[in-house]
C-alpha cells in the first residue's frame, strides 16, 4: 500500500542532491498532482538546484549529471523530472514557473 504523503521518493531525491552538490539552493516540487496519477503519487518532480559545480558547465552536462545521480528513481517510478540547474552567478532569486499542464498522455 502506498503510504499517503510519505514523501519517500522526494526525501530520497533531496538527500542525494544535497549530498552530491552541496547546493546553495535546492527546491524540490512534487508536481504529480498536475498529472493523471493517483493522489499523493511521487511521479513528476521539478528540481531547482544552484551549485558552484555548474559554473562553466554546459546545460546538457548539468542535466545529465542530475539525471545520473537520480538514475534509480527515474527507473523505478519517477516519470518526469524537470530540471533548473544554475551556477550561483546565474541564479536570480525569483520564483520558477511551474511546469506545463498535463495533456493526458501519462498512463497510456
Amino acid at each position, binding site marked *: 500500500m502506498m503510504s499517503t504523503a510519505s514523501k519517500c521518493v522526494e526525501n530520497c531525491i533531496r538527500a542525494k542532491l544535497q549530498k552530491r552538490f552541496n547546493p546553495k539552493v535546492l527546491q524540490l516540487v512534487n508536481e504529480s498532482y498536475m498529472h493523471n496519477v493517483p493522489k499523493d503519487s511521487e511521479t513528476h518532480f521539478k528540481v531547482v538546484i544552484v551549485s558552484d559545480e555548474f559554473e562553466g558547465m554546459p546545460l*546538457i552536462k548539468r*542535466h545529465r549529471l542530475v*539525471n545520473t545521480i537520480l538514475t534509480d528513481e527515474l527507473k523505478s517510478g519517477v516519470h518526469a523530472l524537470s530540471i533548473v540547474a544554475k551556477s550561483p552567478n546565474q541564479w536570480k532569486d525569483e520564483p520558477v514557473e511551474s511546469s*506545463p499542464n498535463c*495533456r493526458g498522455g501519462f498512463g497510456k
Partner: protein
Amino acid sequence: MTSILRQMININKTTRISSLTYKQFLSTKSDDPIQSHIGKLVKSNKIVVFMKGVPQAPRCGFSNAVVDILNIHKAKFEAHDVLIDENLRNGIKEYSNWPTIPQVFIDGEFIGGCDIMLELHRSGELDKILENNTQEKPVA
C-alpha cells in the same frame, strides 16, 4: 612449465574478456535493430522530435512546449509519437541516454528535452543553433 601454462591461461582469459566487452559494446548500438532504426530516424531530417502525441495534438505538456518553441522559430521538424510504439519509447531513452520524453535532435545530434529547449529559446542560443542548422555545411 606450469608458469607458462598459467600465463597462457591468463592471456586467454584477458582476450576472452576484452572480446566479450567489444561484443557488448557493439550490441548496444548497431546490432540492436531498434537502435539502428533510431540511428537512421534522428538523421532523417534536420530537426527530429520524439514526443508524446503529434504536433497538432500533443499528449503531454512538455511535448507541447517543445512543439510551441519550434513553431515560434518557424522551424520545420519531423515528429515521432512514442505513445504508439513502446519499443521506440524505451529505445530512444537508451539511444540518447536520456530518461525522459520529449527529446529533440538537430543534425542527428541530441540537443535535450523541454527544459533545455526552453532555456536555449530564452537565451537566444536556439536562434544560433537553428541558423547553423539551415546553412549549408562547408565542404571539407
